């Protein structure tokens, strides 16, 4: 990442290793403090303080909701994510590699991915009924696109020389995909996977709110309708924490297994 060295436009950060995270956490702290102060100042029942919310988070996580709602949600999100990953990579690479096939399907793919996911929920309920299966299907319908499109784009931009060399050496079919196309497109695929992971969680919630009798989405909705205000906020905080945890784990894994990729090895904090 380019950094402006000119000091007149930007004041530089001290060149120490831990400065950035420390300032980063200070930013989080300021927001938490702002929340607390605002809630105390407003003093309404619909906006609990930061501390009350954190206490509710503790109660929720130590109660039965952990195994009834939090874990099923994690399971569904990961299942949907896994299916999306496999489906997106296979279909995306195939459409990108076979150019003509990709051209034929481009408009269709463009239309399908433009379908707003939540509109699928009523349809999925008609087709699959209420429950886990429906939720996972909704997750896949949203999370497959970033993977598929990134794989597609990257497969089209693979250096033709590499493909020609591989073909000249007698690689074809699955071996060509596995040993040339897949490694060449992996950085893009991983970028897509990261987006898919956060998409999974976001869409999961809407599906659970509308058509499940368990899960975090259900929990949040239920808490709101029974006016358990701190619990409602706690559900959202847990969800945000889950999103952050997923993302952090993903980045760690990426850093560990994809170190050979220049773009990954550089700044990747966005």
């Amino acid at each position, binding site marked *: 990442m380019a950094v402006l060295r000119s000091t007149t436009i930007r004041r530089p950060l001290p060149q120490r290793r831990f400065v950035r995270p420390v300032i980063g956490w200070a*930013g989080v702290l300021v927001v938490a403090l702002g929340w607390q102060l605002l809630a105390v100042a407003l003093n309404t029942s619909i906006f609990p303080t930061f501390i009350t919310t954190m206490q509710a988070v503790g109660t929720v996580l130590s109660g039965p909701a952990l195994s009834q709602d939090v874990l099923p949600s994690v399971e569904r999100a990961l299942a949907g994510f896994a299916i999306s990953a496999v489906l997106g990579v296979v279909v995306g690479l195939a459409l990108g590699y076979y150019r003509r096939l990709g051209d034929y399907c481009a*408009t269709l793919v463009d239309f399908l991915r433009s379908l707003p996911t939540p509109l699928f929920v009523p349809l999925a309920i008609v087709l699959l009924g209420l429950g886990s299966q429906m939720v996972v299907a909704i997750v896949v319908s949203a999370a497959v696109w970033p993977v598929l499109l990134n794989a*597609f784009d990257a497969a089209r931009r693979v250096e033709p020389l590499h493909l020609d060399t591989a073909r000249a050496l007698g690689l074809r079919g699955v071996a060509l995909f596995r040993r040339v196309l897949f490694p060449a497109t992996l950085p893009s695929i991983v970028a897509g996977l990261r987006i898919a992971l956060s998409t999974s969680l976001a869409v999961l919630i809407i599906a659970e709110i509308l058509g499940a009798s368990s899960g975090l989405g259900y929990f949040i909705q239920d808490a709101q309708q029974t006016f358990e205000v701190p619990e409602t906020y706690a559900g959202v905080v847990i969800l945000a924490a889950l999103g952050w945890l997923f993302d952090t784990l993903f980045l760690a894994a990426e850093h560990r297994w994809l170190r050979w990729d220049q773009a990954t090895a550089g700044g990747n904090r966005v």
Partner: protein
Amino acid sequence: MTMTRPTTSSPPTGTPPRAVPVRRRARGRLRRFRGLVGVVVAFAIWALVSRTGLVSANDLPTIPAVAQAFGTSWSPILAGLGTTVEGLFLGLAIAAVAGAVLGVLVGLSLWADAATDILVRMMRPMPSLALIPIAILVAGLGTEMTAGLVAFAAFWPVFINTRYAANSVDPRYVDTARSLGFSQWELVRRVVLPSVAPGFGTGLRISAGVAIVATISVELVAGTGGLGGFVLSAEQGGATAQLYAGLIVGGVLGWLLNLVLSTLTRRLMPWQAAVEKRGEN
């Protein structure tokens, strides 16, 4: 089709453009219509599957049935579409302005950038849709609630991409501009903003998708009408043909929005053509 994460672009490796023979160009124009093949095949499969009764008519109505649904309920569909578009654009506009301004301000300061770093990483994967119950709690069921929630959800892609772009303005441009005697304001207006604009465009396009999802989610959960409301009532009334009609209208809306935004970005920011080209197919 777009890359959703700003990546460093590799230098073009291809040969310089040569004069293209006329016949090849004509074929290139034909290639644009190849996309229709997939659409036609999809319709054919739909017709075949619904005719043969492989899937029950309740799950997958026939094409004429859906066409008829369009005919009988075009007025509620249009009304719903209007409501949806209103909330969508209001929220998206707020998100675009706030995201652009804050993104440039934060991206230009290394301190602000560091201070918001972890916060942004927490908020980025945050499923804004989970806030719908809270938004209902706080703001009731009006348009303000929809627009506010849509704005919140759509803010992040604009903000993150703009911040990133502002953070990675090429220092050589800045130095050049400064040695040419640009004032601070001129520097921002003539160097920083043009460099940031493509990132903003990318962010806005992602945001548009997010905004549609958020708008319709609110409509489904809060029952505030719109396209989501139409589809929901079709589901509850067992009118599957109406449901499919609403779904198609939603797809066209999303597709059009994406088309308009990507054309606009290309027209308004020709200097980004090289980067854009990569995402095209």
